[in-house]
């Protein structure tokens, strides 16, 4: 239904190549997240799949059919935009019905599908309002509604939650995940937020400067990052990287230890340092440790009850089984 295959895709704007040759397969029913820092080409890649940009070379296949030259509407994909891109002069009902009207569907069928989508997305009470009278989260739902009535073979999301406030974002994240579980349609989701990627994805595609750095399930990327970039990008707080003697001891150019894999104690440990800032989240506490002689700061995650203060001297012990080793090129050993 929604298997998307990219073969040797490239995209250049003028003389600058934004996407170097790239291969990627998105399986039917998969929730794939493109994640990477801003300007890494993830949105461009999505727009290439959508057909809003033409590929410079390469082939896009959707459900076994060559879609490289196909117009966006003919690809059977639906897209949710960052700005929602609702039509401001139309009511919610008309917004959702627009793609069906363009497909010359009968009014009875349109009515049925719109009502169906509205009940799925809790929009029934707002059908006769205009987008301007809705809140951010409701607008987001209308945009999703407009996408699902078409029953596309795949959904494309372009940073859909970045305009929402933090609390709403968590809620919408769940709703989209639930929607995916219910529809089991292929979804491609672009974000720069690794938390969204980790929580929602079946498969994460980490991009940097148009290159695919690694493809895998969230836990795969967390446990076995292929290089330093992926290791640093996935996981929050960020992984600690150490170079020099400590790395040599592990026969590596540099080593990485996640904050949650370091024990902190006041009596004994491998490393010593002084507590700088400590961030109390209630369930957890993040300590930023200075003067370890290993790196400028080392971030450590401890339980919420651990109560070191600014200036306390503490001892750190990394869990030896989860130390990541990297060579001089930053690749995992």
């Amino acid at each position: 239904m929604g298997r998307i295959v990219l073969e040797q895709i490239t995209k250049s704007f003028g003389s600058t190549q934004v996407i170097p040759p790239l291969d990627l397969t998105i399986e039917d029913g998969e929730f794939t997240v493109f994640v990477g820092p801003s300007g890494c080409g993830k949105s461009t890649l999505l727009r290439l799949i959508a057909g809003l940009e033409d590929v410079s070379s390469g082939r896009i296949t959707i459900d076994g059919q060559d879609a490289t030259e196909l117009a966006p509407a003919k690809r059977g994909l639906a897209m949710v935009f960052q700005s929602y891109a609702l039509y401001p002069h139309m009511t919610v009902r008309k917004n959702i019905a627009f793609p069906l009207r363009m497909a010359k569907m009968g009014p009875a069928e349109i009515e049925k599908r719109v009502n169906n989508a509205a009940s799925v997305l809790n929009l029934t009470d707002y059908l006769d309002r205009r987008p301007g009278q809705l809140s951010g989260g409701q607008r987001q739902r209308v945009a999703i509604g407009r996408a699902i009535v078409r029953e596309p073979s795949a959904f494309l999301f372009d940073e859909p939650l970045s305009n929402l406030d933090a609390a709403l974002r968590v809620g919408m994240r769940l709703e989209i995940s639930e929607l995916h579980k219910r529809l089991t349609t292929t979804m491609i989701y672009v974000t720069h937020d690794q938390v969204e990627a980790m929580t929602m994805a079946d498969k994460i595609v980490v991009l940097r400067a148009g290159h695919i750095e690694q493809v895998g399930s969230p836990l795969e990327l967390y446990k076995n990052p292929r290089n330093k970039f992926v290791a640093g990008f996935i996981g929050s707080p960020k992984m600690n990287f150490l170079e020099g003697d400590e790395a040599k001891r592990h026969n590596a150019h540099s080593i990485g230890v996640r904050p949650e894999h370091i024990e902190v104690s006041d009596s004994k440990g491998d490393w010593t340092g002084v507590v700088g800032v400590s961030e109390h989240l209630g369930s957890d506490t993040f300590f930023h440790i200075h003067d370890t002689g290993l790196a400028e700061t080392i971030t450590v995650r401890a339980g919420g009850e651990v109560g070191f203060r600014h200036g306390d001297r503490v001892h750190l012990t990394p869990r030896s089984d989860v130390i990541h080793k990297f060579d001089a090129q930053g690749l995992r050993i």
Partner: protein
Amino acid sequence: MATQQSRTLARYMMAPAVILLLGWMLVPLTMTLFFSFKKYLPLRGDSLENGLEWVGFQNFVRFISSSAFWPSVSTTMIMVGGVLIITVVLGVFLAILLDQPLWGQGPLRILVIAPFFVMPTVTALVWKNMFLDPVNGLFAHLWKFFGLSPVEWLVDYSLGSIIMIVSWQWLPFATLILITAIQSLDSEQLEAAEMDGASAFHRFIHIVLPHLSRAITIVILIQTIFLLSIFAEIFVTTGGAFGTKTLTYLIFQRVIDSQNIGLGSAGGVYAIILANIVAIFLMRIVGKNLDR
């Protein structure tokens, strides 16, 4: 304007402008009303010093029963309507074209706006002598090139010619307003519509045109105000002959050619009434676009 003090100050600061504008409007309006009820023929020796004879509604009756009145009203409406249709349709078209990325966009936009800076009298003279003249005009040469006999534009198609001249003059204004409106259209909306399967035509009808509705309303309202009082273009080209006599021009003829100030003032009052009727209709039709 938060405090009592700043509100009072604001009133004092605005007072000169308000007083000036009110005076500017009220004095001529009162004088027009005053003259419209008087017999005032300067060449027959009537003057303000000698006192003017009160004639009641005689001027009004005479103005409206003249055979030139109703044709002048319909000419006015045709002229205003014609110019509005041409400028809005072509203006939308030009605005879309000029919004495309193209080479030399900056200079091109200035060139498009240029006709608006030419004075109406000059515009009319340029068109009359350079384009429409049946002997030396550009169109005459064009017609002769194809072996056709030149058209006497200002005689045979007088009203159409004037509509064309005035449209040429006002098209830049419409384009200018509409191009700024079109630039504020969110490109993601167009992309969303494209993904939704809307053709270029449907995108124009369902997305671009509704987005422009407010700007189009403003163009129509502002242009109507100015178009109701077109004068120079008619004066310079046909002098009101060949069915180009608008209400404004008729009033001019009554006052200047016939030297009948009372009659002309009555016509002026009719012109005010006509303008208000047009305004009411326009606000009914397009005014709701401004509320959104």
